């Protein structure tokens, strides 16, 4: 619990939200980068289908996406069974893992699209040049792709993080609003509002707003400082 302006609110949702957002951002960077690379350099017409699938969370109402996730993540669901192959135990829904999986799906386009556009804009000759200078695949990725696609990577990270912090529908569906386990800030605010606890709602909303603005300013600041002219 913290107390500000005489109003006390639980800090647990804030801490949880932060953890979910950081984990989601890291996972989407790891998963989204190869996916975006693959999509950016795909020549087959199948690309259109995949791009549409990736963009789906942008158009599906979160509660619909959440409902399908409930089906996939129930103890006998496809996703649960799949993770069992890797030794996963327990239940996905109503847990931290479930929140992260839901957020990963929901924020997928926010990570993949900026990355994909950054990779598409990358001159492939520079990678060829690096290869002829004896740079291997990972070497090329970290010394050529990352510095040149830095803007896209930053945008992808910020959008993923901010989107996860602010997300409501999906985490509500798959999280089950369990105090101290899956009650994220956005849900806590909603509960406060529904219970007419406006002071607490204002306090949490204000903190979230300040935090989001700070993150965005930080990113735009970094972005400007390291601006690179390509070409």
């Amino acid at each position, binding site marked *: 619990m913290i107390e500000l302006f005489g109003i006390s609110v639980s800090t647990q949702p804030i801490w949880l939200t932060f953890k979910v957002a950081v984990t989601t951002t890291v996972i989407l960077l790891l998963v989204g980068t190869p996916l975006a690379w693959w999509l950016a350099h795909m020549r087959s017409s199948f690309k259109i289908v995949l791009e549409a699938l990736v963009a789906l969370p942008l158009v599906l109402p979160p509660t619909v996406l959440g409902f399908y996730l409930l089906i996939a*993540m129930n103890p*006998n*669901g496809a996703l649960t069974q799949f993770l069992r192959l890797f030794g996963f135990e327990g239940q996905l829904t109503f847990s931290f893992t479930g929140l992260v999986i839901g957020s990963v799906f929901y924020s997928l386009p926010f990570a993949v699209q900026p990355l994909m556009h950054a990779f598409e804009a990358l001159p492939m000759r520079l990678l060829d040049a690096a290869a002829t200078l004896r740079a291997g695949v990972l070497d090329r990725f970290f010394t050529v792709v990352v510095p040149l696609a830095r803007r896209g990577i930053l945008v992808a990270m910020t959008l993923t993080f901010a989107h996860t912090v602010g997300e409501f529908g999906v985490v*509500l*569906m798959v999280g*089950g*609003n369990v105090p101290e386990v899956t009650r994220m800030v956005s849900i806590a605010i909603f*509960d406060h509002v*529904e*219970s007419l606890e406006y002071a607490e709602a204002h306090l949490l909303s204000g903190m979230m707003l300040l935090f989001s603005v700070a993150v965005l300013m930080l990113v735009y600041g970094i972005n400007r400082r390291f601006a690179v002219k390509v070409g």
Partner: protein
Amino acid sequence: MKKLLAPVLAAVVALASPAIVLADTLNAAVAANFTKTIEEIGAAFKEKTGHEVKFSFGPTGKLYAQIKNGAPFDLFFAADTDKPEMLVKEGLVKEGSYFVYAQGVLALYSPSLPVKEGYKDVLGKAEFAHLSIANPKTAPYGAAAEEVLKKLGVYDTVKPKIVNGESIAHAFQYVQTGNAPLGFVALSQIVDPQSPAYGKGEYWLPGQDMYAPINQGAVILKRAENNPVAQQFIDYLRSDEGRKVIERYGYSIP
């Protein structure tokens, strides 16, 4: 030529003034949970009287806001009592028309656990992973579920297992998709033959004395104050024929 013109003109006038053509049609705003019940009653009413009732379904709060902002509804069937009572206070309804048309019935439902006879045992041991209820802060069914759990003396035992659906529909989804093995849902969600839960698993109905009634209130709106058809529909809904349908869909009537 003049002979031909007259009926054509009459037809144009008739089409242009909906008041004349649609005189026998009512518009009703209905809480989404009551959709099927009232559609069946409406169809029977039309067959009997020839008058048609058109229904708009939605969350009670949204319908209330629409009515306050002048939406052309004649009748309002809410999922709670607050919203119609507020309309009464605001003077937007026909005087004396407010009544409770149905009461929600709470059910402990599980597709797999023996809750019908063994609810005490199941809840007391709390060996399940999750118990789904509607959010007690926002949904009357949730508050009722919490009351029942407290009356049974198992609230503290099951509390760590509780997951909160934002609405009763949402709480039902948790059970229906297998994410929670049992949950407090509305009886209306499991007795509907089209429900995915119909005839599957078992349920226990806590006594009506264990929780405050989940009343659903209705009003005739100011707009239909002098419309005899509006009163006629309400009367039909409250007749034995209407009550039978309401009860068949899992509601009780005070």
